[in-house]
């Protein structure tokens, strides 16, 4: 199915948000996630199922003002 991750459309077989993060190679990186605009805590990623056209945000620490 096709989903959008960080604004980019991609094809994935990942069933859950946790699978997606693992498939994309985030591993143990310190990231925050959101699905369709709503926050998904790390503890809920494995229970969060993905559907076609879902929009995922995966964010990491960055410099800020």
């Amino acid at each position, binding site marked *: 199915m096709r989903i959008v991750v960080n*604004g980019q459309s991609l094809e994935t077989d990942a069933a859950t948000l946790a699978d997606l993060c693992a498939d994309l190679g985030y591993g143990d990186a310190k990231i925050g996630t959101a699905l369709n605009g709503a*926050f998904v805590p790390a503890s809920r990623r494995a229970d969060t199922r993905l559907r076609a056209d879902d929009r995922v*945000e995966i964010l*990491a620490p960055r*410099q*800020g003002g």
Partner: protein
Amino acid sequence: MSPLSLYGEIIASRLMLGTALYPSPEVMRQAVAAAAAAVVTVSLRREGAHDRAGQTFWTLIQDLGVRVLPNTAGCRSPREAITTAQMAREVFETDWIKLEVIANDDTLQPDVFGLVEAAQALSADGFKVFPYTTEDLGVAERLLAAGCEVLMPWASPIGAGRGLINPYGLRAMRAYFPGTPLIIDAGLGAPSHAAQAMEMGYDAVLLNTAVAKADDPVKMAAAFAKAVEAGRLGFEAGLMPERDMAQPSTPVAGTPFFDLNHA
């Protein structure tokens, strides 16, 4: 200087520093040290899985040993800001959030309606909200009613470096909320701007570009630290009242060549 308390925590420095726009991470680290900043601002941004810049940055920040204040920079709606704040709380392990809801690309001015809405939701969710706002007193009252215990009015637009463009409004805000910690956030360009804010009685200043974009960011960080300290000490000492006319400081009695006939 008297201690600064924010949400019940004593903060060792009245100068808060952003971590963006420096020539290098090492210069940023040295600038934070030169500023003796106890709080630095950070953000969350999209990152590819194999680009570990975020992890490297986070390790650098942790090594600084300072408190982080994550922001919601770039968010244009309450929903974006709330979701970003929730992600920041998990990633940075803090319930402090510098809440930005931006209304306009050219001025980066706060969307004060969205700001109040997001502040209400985040405060109810246990966040300690630091709202980036204007000097508008009505908005400030609504932010306090929403649960904010600190307000962060701008001096001038983010990155403008123009200093306190509405000193009357900022002075009124200080007078109107004597017991609320007020932090000038955004628009300071020179150490004298920081001193002016602190002399008015503002509790702290938060800045980034003026230091990061200086020819020598580390020296500029030190300059701002001295200005903040000088301004605060001046406020605590109590400024003399201004007068319209001159008044001699040297005693008049005993003035040489003084002749009452020509007085």
